[in-house]
């Protein structure tokens, strides 16, 4: 049981990285990145490919950070003539293209089979010590990402980003280069998700193209909405809550006498009900964005 709890907490910390990254884009800057999973994929596959060629795991993480940052910058430049909603569609397309490249470049990426047997930093540590090492690593990374995100949103850069979200025309008239700011925030946010992707891949020692489907992006959006979009603390707790709901609901059938054949459907139903009830009773999420509260009180 302890092992499973450690596992759930580790995965939640990894998801916190994804959520913090997306929060910088969607929550703070208002960039609806529907292709967020691409950054996860770049990190994951960098680690996988480097491991496949016998490289050190740190090298994989590093490659993921650099490549994802470049990809982020490119995606930021990509949409400079597009309205926000069209840009969202482009990001979805970029992520899908990446997935198709991964499926078809079999020699490099293992194709549809994916890459398996990837050795991570604690592969030689077994049992409880191994699980604890992973948990500590992931929690430290999530904490670092949180600090980075808090610092970024707290400084002038963060204010510009929020202005970009609320009044892009005003931002432009004040002399802010919208494309440059967009490019900058994506280049900073992408590596956070890439590190998450790397660590996740090293942890479960497998990556396949089916983990790059758009549904993974929407799962992270769900975390943001539950946690409170625009708030870094919300992103972290959103990730934790969603992970707890998904993992915890596996035990429903152990507690209540649900027939085997409908247990899984009941589980999904409960997850859906909990999330819907949550959105109805607390639409602003667990932690509302502070800035907005100030606006309201004026």
């Amino acid at each position, binding site marked *: 049981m302890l092992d499973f709890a450690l596992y759930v907490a580790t995965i939640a910390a990894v998801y916190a990285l994804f959520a913090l990254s997306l929060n910088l884009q969607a929550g703070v800057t*208002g960039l609806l990145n529907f292709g967020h999973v691409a950054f996860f994929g770049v990190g994951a596959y960098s680690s996988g490919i480097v491991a496949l060629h016998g490289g050190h795991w740190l090298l994989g993480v590093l490659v993921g950070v650099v490549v994802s940052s470049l990809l982020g910058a490119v995606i930021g430049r990509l949409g400079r003539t597009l309205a926000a909603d069209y840009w969202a569609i482009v990001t979805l397309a970029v992520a899908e293209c990446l997935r198709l490249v991964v499926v078809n470049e079999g020699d490099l990426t293992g194709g549809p089979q994916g890459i398996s*047997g990837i050795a991570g930093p604690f592969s030689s540590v077994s049992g409880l010590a191994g699980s604890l090492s992973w948990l500590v690593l992931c929690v430290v990374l999530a904490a670092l990402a949180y600090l980075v995100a808090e610092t970024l949103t707290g400084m002038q850069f963060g204010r510009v980003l929020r202005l970009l979200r609320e009044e892009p025309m005003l931002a432009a008239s004040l002399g802010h280069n919208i494309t440059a700011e967009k490019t900058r925030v994506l280049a900073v946010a992408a590596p956070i998700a890439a590190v998450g992707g790397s660590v996740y891949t090293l942890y479960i020692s497998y990556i396949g193209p089916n983990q790059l489907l758009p549904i993974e992006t929407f799962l992270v959006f769900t975390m943001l909405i539950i946690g409170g979009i625009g708030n870094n603390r919300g992103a972290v707790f959103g990730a934790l809550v969603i992970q707890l709901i998904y993992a915890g609901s*596996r035990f429903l*059938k152990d507690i209540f006498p*649900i027939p085997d054949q409908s247990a899984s459907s009941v589980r999904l139903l409960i997850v859906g009900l909990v999330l819907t009830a949550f959105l109805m009773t607390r639409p602003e999420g667990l932690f509302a964005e502070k800035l907005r509260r100030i606006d309201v009180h004026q």
Partner: protein
Amino acid sequence: MLIRRRLMKPAAVLGLAVVLAACGGTAADTGGGGGDAASGGSDAKAGAVNIGAVLPLTGSSASIGEDQRRGIELAVAKINEDGGVMGKDLNVIVEDSAGAANSAIDAAKKLVTVDKVAAVMGEYSSGVTVPLGQYLQQEGVIHMNVGSSSPEIAGIGDKSFSVIGLDTIASKFASEQLAGRGLMRAAIMVPNNSYGEGIVQPFTDAFKAAGGSVTETVLYTEGQTSYRAELERIAASKPDVVLYSAYGQDSSVINQQAFEGGMQKTPWFGIYLTMCTVDSAPATVQNQIGMDVNYVGPEGQDYQKAYEAKYGEGFASTFSGYTYDATMMLAKAIDDAGSTDADKIAAALKKLGSGYAGATGDITFDDQNQRSEQPYLVLKYTDGKVVEEG
């Protein structure tokens, strides 16, 4: 606070809806029989022998997953009626994989670390089974592949067994069938995924060895609305026969467009023909030939009767027999070993797997613990149904 902000909530709620819908899939499709409510509460039972299963109970393969679960349910009922395992009841804890690798590993983690199961069966898609098997191998837990056929599975390790023949065997059988009919120039059309990729190389090798040649190989991207470009490539290579495999919506679109293009004049050979034709309009697949797994072996008659009695219908898919056999074999192996130690179970399984009379025919493991012989049926699609070819 404008457009951007207003756009965000609906978009995200939409995203949430997509997540849930995708997870839900055909989850509701559990109909067709008197469920046994009393079997609920499948926590690891004290005083029982616990094994686990990871199946796609929700998502796009949910109807197969449910049928796999039925096989287990029937096996457990039979084993416990006959005195259980090591004098105790057998208890199988079934977890949902939602058809995705990461939630399959979530599920396996729970089975291994919380329920402390002696073995885990699963899954259906090759792309999920491989990482699942590797995780179990790493944890030193017995893995039973009950539904996937990618040759990649053979390399998982000494704790991983397959009760279903991999595509190496299926491909060899298909190549013999084609060569036997004098169809020596074949074009291959299979999905570009773990499963499709597993067919291409073994078939090409076996077919060449049998004197045939492959005129064109198409690995198509799933979920397209048109396959005309792929079909034209096939037609341009002028094959004697099109060897193909497809499921769900894809199979229906491919067959429809091949039919419209007049390509059905060339013989079509379906790998797992039932799966390839079940969703297609009957006229478009008339006279297709193909092969399918033979799910009722000589020992399978009792199993078939039990299934029909319990669920009030014939087999919903070809896959319940494999989970049934896997459960029976695991129970017997644990009983023989007198222990739930993985190494001892593996040794007992190896011993058991030489001519074991299963519901899906004789099961013999090769030196990689994979089923080495798999009986197949040769089938033909005639007037709306698949019939055995004499």
